[in-house]
């Protein structure tokens, strides 16, 4: 045994394809050249500022990498290097606005943030009174009402739609699927106009949170329906057939087997729908009326909502109201991110099961 253990150790695997330091030399040189030449060009020509710097940097990166691979191989390799740089630049361009957005939201929003803002509304404060007065309690409550009611309206319709497409496979399944897909592209303002036309003009009601919820529900249904459809399609057919083979009716198969198996996915679809509509502004401008005081009754009287609060304070245009708008954005983003993270959390457990 001891001899076996002391048997010659296997040779350490060499990786002949791995780049040796010598091969990295042109790349390091190229990177250095790009950086130095960019600074030189920006320093000695009229091109100035961040814009000039980034344009020159991108151009120099393209020229250097293309030159290096052109010399090492051929023109095709040079073209490949050019496009590689462009693809990386495109990916970087996506990050810039997002980082700027999040940075500015936190920078401008966190200043006025305190727990007091969740306990006060704007009924006793003027728009230009300092941030320590007033708050957004009314907006938080309004958002809560509209989103909850929209969820109550849209969840049954959305899930029934997905059941119709996947389980019942009715005569119009293809048509419904197609229209629901198209419905997800309806402009939010049109949903608001529709509710205004029906609810206010033709039925003669006045602004309230329920009307806003109706408009949000129209926007939420496609999200819920499409995500649930994907989830239901992932449930193995074996489960359904097992249920039917045991003599269960289709109703019992769906209710006792399919839906419990898809539960976390269905929850994800609802939360995704909430995240989709929680920040919608345009339909609420036409339906909830707006209010500065807290309105605890969602079925009568004007109400507010976080996006509405942002919109209104932006529109007022004085210095503190703009600060309030950023504060509203900050709170709104927190709400959206909570739902977003919840959706990803539930979605993740679903992935594990699928594996």
């Amino acid at each position, binding site marked *: 045994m001891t001899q076996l253990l002391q048997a010659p150790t296997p040779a350490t695997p060499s990786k002949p394809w791995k780049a040796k330091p010598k091969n990295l030399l042109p790349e390091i040189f190229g990177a250095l050249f790009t950086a130095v030449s960019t600074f030189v060009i920006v320093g000695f020509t009229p091109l100035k500022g961040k814009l000039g710097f980034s344009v020159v940097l991108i151009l120099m990166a393209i020229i250097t990498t293309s030159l290096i691979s052109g010399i090492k191989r051929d023109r095709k390799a040079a073209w490949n290097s050019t496009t590689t740089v462009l693809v990386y630049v495109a990916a970087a361009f996506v990050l810039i606005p997002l980082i700027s957005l999040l940075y500015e939201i936190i920078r401008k929003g966190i200043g006025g943030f305190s727990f007091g803002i969740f306990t006060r509304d704007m009924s006793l404060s003027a728009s230009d009174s300092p941030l320590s007065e007033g708050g957004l309690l009314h907006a938080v409550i309004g958002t809560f009402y509209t989103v909850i009611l929209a969820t109550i309206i849209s969840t049954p319709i959305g899930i029934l739609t997905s059941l119709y497409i996947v389980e019942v496979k009715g005569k119009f399944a293809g048509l419904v699927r197609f229209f629901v897909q198209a419905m997800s592209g*309806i402009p939010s*303002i049109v949903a608001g*106009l529709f509710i205004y036309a029906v609810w206010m003009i033709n039925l003669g009601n006045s602004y309230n949170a329920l009307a806003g919820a109706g408009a949000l529900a129209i926007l939420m249904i496609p999200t819920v329906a499409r995500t649930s459809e994907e989830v239901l399609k992932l449930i193995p057919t074996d489960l359904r057939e097992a249920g039917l083979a045991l003599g269960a*009716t289709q109703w019992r198969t769906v209710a006792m087997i399919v839906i419990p198996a898809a539960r976390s996915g269905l929850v994800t679809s609802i939360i995704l729908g909430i995240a989709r509509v929680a920040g919608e502004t*345009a339909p609420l401008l036409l339906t909830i009326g707006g209010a500065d005081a807290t309105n605890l009754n969602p079925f009568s009287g004007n109400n507010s909502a976080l996006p509405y609060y942002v*919109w209104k304070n932006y529109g007022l245009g004085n210095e503190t109201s703009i600060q309030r708008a950023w504060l509203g954005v900050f709170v*709104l983003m927190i709400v959206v991110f909570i739902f977003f993270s919840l959706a990803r959390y539930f979605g993740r457990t679903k992935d594990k099961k699928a594996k």
Partner: protein
Amino acid sequence: MSTATAPIKTTPSPREITTEPRFSDKVFRAVVTAGGLSSLVILAAIAFFLVYNGFEVFRSEGLNFLTGFDWIDALPEEGLAASYGLGAMLYGTLVIGLLAVIFGVPIAVGTALFLSYYAPEWLKKPMVLIIDVMAAIPSVVFGLWGYFILMPHAEYWAKLIHKYLGFIPIFDMPANAFSRSPFIAGLVLAIMIIPIVTSISREVFAQTPLDRIQAAYALGATRWAMIKAVVFPYGSGGVIGGAMLGLGRALGETVAVYTVLNLVYDIRIEVLLSAGGSVASMIVNKFGEADAVELQALMAAGFVLFLVTLAVNFIANIIINRTARKG
């Protein structure tokens, strides 16, 4: 079982076999069908109620509603009749939508290529997360950011473009007003449509057959040559469909455009000038102080917007579905 004495005299009649669903199933199917068809009903109701409430304007304006440039309320004391023409706003909507596609789609497709073929494994997940986060940001937030943060930069870029490319008519400037231009609205919209175009392009790219990709590499193709020869021919339909979906979103965007675009009832080809149009933003703009007649005109405008976006979405989805089936 204990008695084997009494032989069974009559065989029990066989259980009736039927394909008729049970009562519970009938109810279940009826409920599900009703739920499933309700989205069709909602779409039909949207079209009906917008037409119903805007009918008067459609009738009185006729084709002028689509081609006219004026949006004037009636002034009875001065004997002026109302005139509602959506032409300028429709044109403006199209301009900012196209600008958004021109700015956004190359970046989105590049990002999708990056995620599919260039990015190292560890970067893929965070990058996809970032795109998802972008898709979740509400439009009012983009509006505020666009107005306060992007606009100063974008004005500077617009001035540069005008300075060096001003000889091209669309970059000409009749007045020194660079803020709130279609150019800036297009930039904001481009950022807003990047997530959807990226995710659809990525889905389509993921369906490219792996054997073709590997065959291309085995023949000595560079990465770009492979993408050009294999990925683009397979995914072009999906990319076009994704771009159209993005266009549909851009056409219907309301709040973000409202904050960064100056609405002017005129058709101008200069995209850097502070004068543009957007049907959706116009509806919000006019809604507050609209009287009953103007409200009807706004309903009619909403119906036009509804039809346009629905048509764009239909075509986009047909293209995407066809590409997805081919893959």
